[in-house]
């Protein structure tokens, strides 16, 4: 193999598994160390710069970082990254004076943001401090979008959301709430220099063709609409027997909300097998903890309506069959259809984009699924003035993805308004600094803690089921937060190898607790992976290969289960190994990144 090019910022970035997996590339280990040091405000601000809504995400994030966490490959459970973020948010000091304001003198450019969800608010936050005049339009009375309408208060208290939304709106954003935008043409006719569409995926899928759907309509609700109706206090009760259809996180929010509005006998009924449900495992656990059974392998067949009143639903029992390509089909078991009693049914089987308010003659091309054609890097549509982000851009995902897209949209809008090429994306900010303090001292806590993942305490369900605004999770306290933070392996403290300093004493190879380092003859990657101290079977993890050493061999390090304990560097007599902290931050829209 050729020597690894560690000058490519993406090499070391990839070693920081959590950060690499995060759509916004939040510098996770950096803020976890700050939490351990009780520097909650700094930890919060690192998050805020990157993901804009640390308090919200610390409670509700889909956490793509956690399945990626190296700790999960070394022992059983990853670090509780998401809930540590909440520790920072819960314990932070006053951050108002750390948040930038819009300059008194604007730059003369106006941008309209349609929808006040996480994508639009991210664009607002990135552009307002640069002098842009930002106008946000939303049909609701407050900002937040689906974070407000679809995430129930028992998971995300309103005060937390209000604070983080207002931190942005207080920058001097012009808000136009209770204003439904019914025509993009009208918006474009005004003097905006650019328009950003962050209207989410507002349409819940329905079972329109199912028998009894029309007759039982009064007691059949679309999940996301019903959740919004609860959030804005138009709905305050539901029947005793409730069926929630669907296996995603919206279904979990629907069933748990039902339990708080009078639902005593609430069931989740889902087509797919339990293990293949789309909901996050922890959300399924939380639902079952609130005495909500999940019936899998049940396909809805009809709504049963008697005398104009919904009585329940019938289901066909199925099992999953997989063809040789792994494609799943649900095949009937041949048993009789099952009847399940219900006073109300919530349909939470997915959501779709919907752009009835965008005229089709504005130069915005739509594909055969009625989705606008949006560049996946610049988020520009085929009308150069119109940008998309969040669920509206590339289909429904999650808050953290919307934020990441918002950042890129803001960069594009800024470049567009300054007459620059959108292809000229700013490079990430990187920094690589030795952590050596002395013979046995590093400026990070290199000892690997043996603790298993700590469990986040929950409030008693006799209390939480009575009040839909009572937050269920209590969060880690400071001590638990410290202990959980210590489980982090500091993957951003990189093992940096300098080939011409190595005297090939083998000390690093002998000491490495996880047998990552091998000195051997060079070969192809496929061959090398079989010849290491322990076979490098995880092909997603790179090999760090040195240049040729004095004896003709090379140093090969499998990054897979490196504990970043620093023992290689400590046992190295010539500092050929050093532990160096790699800080990687996605550059946001700012004029520092422009040449003129």
């Amino acid at each position, binding site marked *: 193999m050729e020597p690894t090019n560690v000058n490519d910022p993406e090499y070391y970035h990839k070693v920081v598994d959590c950060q690499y997996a995060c759509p916004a590339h939040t510098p996770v280990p950096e803020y976890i160390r700050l939490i351990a040091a009780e520097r909650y405000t700094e930890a919060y601000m690192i998050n805020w710069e990157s993901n804009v809504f640390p308090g919200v995400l610390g409670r509700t994030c889909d956490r793509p970082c956690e399945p990626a966490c190296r700790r999960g490959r*070394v022992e059983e459970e990853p670090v509780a990254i998401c809930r540590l973020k909440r520790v920072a948010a819960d314990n932070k000091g006053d951050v108002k004076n750390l948040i930038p304001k819009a300059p008194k003198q604007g730059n003369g450019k106006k941008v309209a943001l349609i929808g006040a969800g996480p994508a639009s608010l991210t664009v607002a936050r990135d552009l307002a401090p640069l002098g842009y005049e930002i106008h946000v339009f939303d049909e609701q009375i407050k900002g937040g979008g689906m974070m407000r309408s679809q995430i129930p208060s028992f998971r995300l208290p309103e005060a937390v959301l209000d604070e983080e939304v207002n931190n942005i709106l207080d920058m001097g954003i012009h808000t136009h709430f209770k204003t439904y935008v019914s025509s993009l043409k009208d918006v474009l006719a005004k003097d905006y220099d650019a328009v950003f569409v962050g209207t989410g995926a507002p349409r819940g899928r329905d079972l329109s063709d199912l028998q009894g759907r029309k007759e039982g309509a009064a007691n059949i609700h679309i999940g996301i609409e019903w959740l919004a109706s609860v959030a804005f206090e138009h709905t305050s009760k539901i029947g005793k027997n409730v069926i929630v259809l669907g296996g995603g996180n919206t279904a979990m929010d629907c069933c748990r909300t039902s339990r708080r509005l009078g639902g005593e006998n609430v069931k989740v009924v889902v087509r797919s097998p339990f293990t293949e449900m789309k909901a996050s495992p922890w959300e399924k656990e939380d639902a079952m903890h609130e005495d909500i059974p999940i019936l899998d392998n049940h396909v809805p067949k009809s709504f049963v309506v008697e005398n104009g009143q919904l009585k329940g639903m019938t289901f066909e029992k199925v099992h999953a069959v997989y063809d040789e390509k792994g494609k799943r089909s649900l095949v009937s078991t041949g048993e009789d259809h099952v009847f399940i009693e219900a006073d109300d049914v919530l349909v939470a089987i997915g959501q779709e984009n919907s752009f009835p308010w965008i005229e089709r003659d504005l130069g915005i091309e739509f594909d055969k699924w009625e989705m606008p054609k949006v560049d996946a890097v610049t988020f520009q549509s085929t009308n150069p003035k119109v940008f998309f982000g969040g669920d509206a851009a590339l289909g429904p995902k999650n808050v953290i993805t919307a934020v990441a897209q918002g950042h890129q949209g803001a960069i594009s809008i800024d470049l567009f308004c300054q007459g620059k090429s959108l292809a000229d994306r700013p490079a990430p900010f990187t920094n690589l600094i030795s952590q050596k303090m002395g013979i046995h001292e590093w400026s990070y806590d290199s000892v*690997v803690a043996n603790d298993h993942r700590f469990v986040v305490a929950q409030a008693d369900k006799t209390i939480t089921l009575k009040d839909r605004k009572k937050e269920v999770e209590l969060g880690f306290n400071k001590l638990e937060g410290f202990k959980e933070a210590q489980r982090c392996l500091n993957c951003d403290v990189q093992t940096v190898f300098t080939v011409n300093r190595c*005297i090939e004493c083998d*000390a690093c190879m002998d000491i490495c607790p*996880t047998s990552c380092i091998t000195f051997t003859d060079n070969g192809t990657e496929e061959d090398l992976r079989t010849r290491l101290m*322990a076979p490098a079977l995880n092909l997603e993890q790179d090999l760090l290969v040195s240049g040729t050493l004095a004896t003709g061999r090379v140093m090969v390090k499998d990054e897979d289960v490196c504990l970043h304990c620093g023992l290689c560097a400590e046992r*190295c007599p010539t500092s050929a190994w050093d532990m160096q902290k790699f800080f990687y931050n996605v550059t946001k829209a700012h004029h520092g990144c422009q040449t003129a």
Partner: protein
Amino acid sequence: MTYIRPTFRHPNLPKNKINYTKKDYEGALSTLCAGCGHDSISGAIIQACFELAIEPHRLAKLSGIGCSSKTPAYFLGNSHGFNSVHGRMPSVATGAYLANRDLVYFGVSGDGDSASIGMGQFVHAIRRNLNMTYIVMNNGCYGLTKGQDSATADAGSISKAGSTNLFNAIDLVGLGLELGATFIARSFSGDKTQLIPLIKAAMSHPGFALIDVISPCVTFNNNTGSTKSYDYVREHIEATSTIDFVPTMEEITTSYEEGDSKEVALHDGSVLNLQKLNQGWNPEDKLSAMIALQNAKTKGEILTGLIYIEPKTQSLHEVLGTCETPLNELKEDLLCPGQDALEALNQSLR
């Protein structure tokens, strides 16, 4: 600070025949200097014992005093150990070996421990052909007392302080040949591909197996002008042969060109497969071994690899015809067979 070694290990660590991973052969975290050759040798011992699938509780580590003799703390943490008085490890080994021939004996010594204070003991252990592996971690200096020249420092070698050694070195390999050691090898801590099979072969040998391992002292003897530095040894190293250790019952798959290869069958059925690099050398012919050694010395080369082996040797127990059962397993009825046995014995002597 990382004095503490993490407890996590690679989830796919290979297992040996008795289902152990290398972790089961590790010891405490070394306190020797970073980059010490001795730590590499410890690593090679761990690897060799793992590959030989030795049950750790069947092995006894014995050592004297010195940096080298500290190392048994850093490997085979589940084995027996005896850290003896300076230079007296051979006596302790002799006693232990006579008391219990069932254990595998592994002696670790240094150039000071063996070539100076313990020389009188060392030579008698060779003469008696104890069934043990005897590793000398040879760095040519007294590292524990700040690097004075030892008895194995070559004449002309320059110390870190700049003084030149005026005295000739004691060559432990030459000494071993002269005294009749039945397995003699030299190796280098920086060459595990050679050292590991040598250790495995030594442990399979039924008599006294000496391995003199040149092991650079990174702190006091790794300077320019030293003949025991990493750089100097790498530049001057020569090998008698490459060496493959093929355990019992395993098919030999490597094939060498005729004339250059040599197989040595060991008493336990394992085979040493040697690819000769040194013309005229035959590992079972002591004279050719001595000539190869002297030739290398004349040329200023460091001859490594297997130097001499006498595979069908008789160990001390066989020579003395001693009891096969370890003394601690001899029960009272055997040790005190009673009046009748005494009578019979007395009768036989009349």
